């Protein structure tokens, strides 16, 4: 009686759903390339990339091209934008455009480095916990849970206050407080993947744990980790902004958050002094999230229609 039943899925697994007639999945020639194609076809990915490339260019080349020291007093304070200097001056009479260009370096440097730290710690914790399971998992997850109990920004503030306001400390502090979500994500992926046949096969072939973790499982767990790393850059930029805004950044390094923090007392009289650096942070985080979303859609096409 069940022969027909059994035969049926082989005939046509997903019957008359609306997506039934969607084109058959392309043969997976190169999944990375296919994902890149999907990414570039996504308008928000393109927009995000353009924003990020623009900001990176401005931060890297801008200070050389513009050639004004952001700490130098170039004129009267609170000159509105549109004159000379182009974007006006701040409460001290410093050139806002120069500060924006120079500040972009610090902000983006901290953003990328802190995200890197986040990913390294998070992936290490998550991979070990997910791969070994059992007590290792329980112990590592306990640590992760502990870190999640501390409000991230507050913890970062405490670290910077205690250990000194230097850009390296800021970066490390942001990395230290932000890794738990990445760890959980990585762990979940490892838990899912470690039971699959290709891992069993590699294990049967005599692969050691390090090889299994790094060369067998990790590449397959990469897509969601890449997405979370992208988003971690955005979070780090926001954190850097907040710390500098509160006066916890490196006072000798110009950054967007520092500009807002220093000028905020005069925001009512000279709104552009806070509007512009804030808009810069906004653009940077927006660019990163757009790219992150597009990456997510590209590596995860199933979810595309949902959000």
């Amino acid at each position: 009686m069940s022969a027909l039943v059994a035969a049926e899925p082989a005939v046509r697994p997903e019957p008359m759903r609306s997506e039934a007639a969607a084109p058959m999945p392309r043969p997976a020639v190169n999944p990375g390339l296919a994902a890149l194609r999907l990414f570039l076809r996504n308008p928000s990915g393109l927009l995000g990339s353009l924003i990020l490339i623009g900001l990176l260019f401005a931060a890297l080349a801008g200070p050389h091209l513009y050639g004004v020291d952001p700490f130098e007093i170039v004129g009267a304070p609170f000159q509105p934008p549109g004159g000379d200097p182009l974007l006006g001056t701040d409460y001290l009479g410093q050139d806002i455009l120069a500060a924006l260009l120079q500040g972009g370096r610090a902000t983006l440097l901290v953003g990328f480095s802190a995200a890197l730290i986040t990913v390294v710690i998070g992936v290490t914790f998550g991979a070990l916990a997910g791969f070994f399971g059992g007590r290792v998992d329980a112990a590592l997850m306990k640590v992760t849970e502990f870190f999640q109990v501390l409000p991230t920004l507050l913890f970062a503030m405490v670290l910077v206050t205690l250990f000194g306001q230097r850009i390296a400390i800021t970066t490390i502090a942001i990395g230290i407080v932000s890794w738990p979500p990445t760890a959980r994500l990585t762990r979940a992926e490892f838990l899912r993947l470690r039971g699959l046949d290709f891992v069993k096969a590699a294990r049967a072939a005599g692969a050691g744990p390090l090889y299994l973790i790094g060369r067998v499982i990790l590449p397959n767990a990469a897509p969601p980790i890449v997405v979370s790393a992208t988003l971690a850059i955005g979070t780090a930029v926001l954190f850097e902004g907040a710390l500098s805004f509160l006066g916890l950044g490196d006072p000798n390094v110009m950054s967007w958050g520092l500009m807002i923090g220093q000028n905020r007392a005069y925001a009512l009289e000279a709104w552009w002094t806070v509007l512009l650096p804030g808009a810069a942070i906004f653009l940077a985080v927006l660019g990163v999230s757009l790219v992150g979303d597009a990456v997510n859609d590209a590596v995860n096409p199933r979810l595309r229609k949902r959000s």
Partner: protein
Amino acid sequence: MDPVLAVEDLTVTLTRPDGPVPVLERLSFSVEAGRTVALVGESGCGKSMTALAIMGLLPEGFARTDGRIRLAGEDIAAAQPSRLRALRGSALSMIFQEPMTALNPVYTVGDQIAEALRLHQRLGRRAALERALAMLRAVQIPAAERRLHAYPHELSGGMRQRVMIAMALACRPKLLIADEPTTALDVTVQAQVFDLLKALQDEMGTAIVLITHDLGAVADIADTVAVLYAGRCIEQGDTRSVMRAPQHPYTRGLMGCTPHLRLGAAADAGTGPLREIPGLVPPLGRRPAICAFADRCGRADATCLDNPQPPLAEAGPARAVACWHPEARAA
């Protein structure tokens, strides 16, 4: 006797960016009170779409573009949404394929059965729960009092499907659509569920539209059968007569895939090992203008390849077949 359900020339179309795509084409069948009609065919033939069209629950993009669906004489395809809502769950109801996901995980079984009673029969909370309890007993769930307050995840698959049946029959509907009600269940449980459906049908006089590819169950409980292929009915008639002497090669092929039925019908076709029908059902939008089965059919010849779709034509008493070369009548 007037049929409870009469589907006439039902046509369903999917709207795609590149134009409309036919899903169901001029489908007609009917079923009387206390009787069962089975819709059979491979996945992708349009069985579930037929069910959803009758319920008025077609997914987005799909729409009935022609034909009538008469429930006790009333054309429900043309009814107002509010009228259709009033009928759903009371005069017509449906059991779905997947009892695991068709029940809401966050409400108790009793609550979900009582819901339709409170809505359609205006019962109070307590009275509705009492009726729900009676229904759980009617579908032979052991320790029904306890199960009333259970959540779906606390029940086995077979038990959940019984709950679905209780829910569907709570308001004593005139028509029950059962969409592959046993596919997701263990083989032993499958037979129990069919027995239960039959017993409840005898008691309530419900007409049943049974969608299945289990031809064994069709032989057991269906009075009439309609074989669907690529959105069309290609053979229909009295179950016994169709089973004994299928006239469409597709029907014959389906039965060739079902071991214990080959004793009757396929035996004379010179048996051999269990056969599969080669090829695939043509996907939506790729249906040919000629007989849709031609490319899978061993009997297809120039007539089949040069002519449009064969019409569903009368072929003996209460039989119809859509084929240019129907098999000879039963020997």
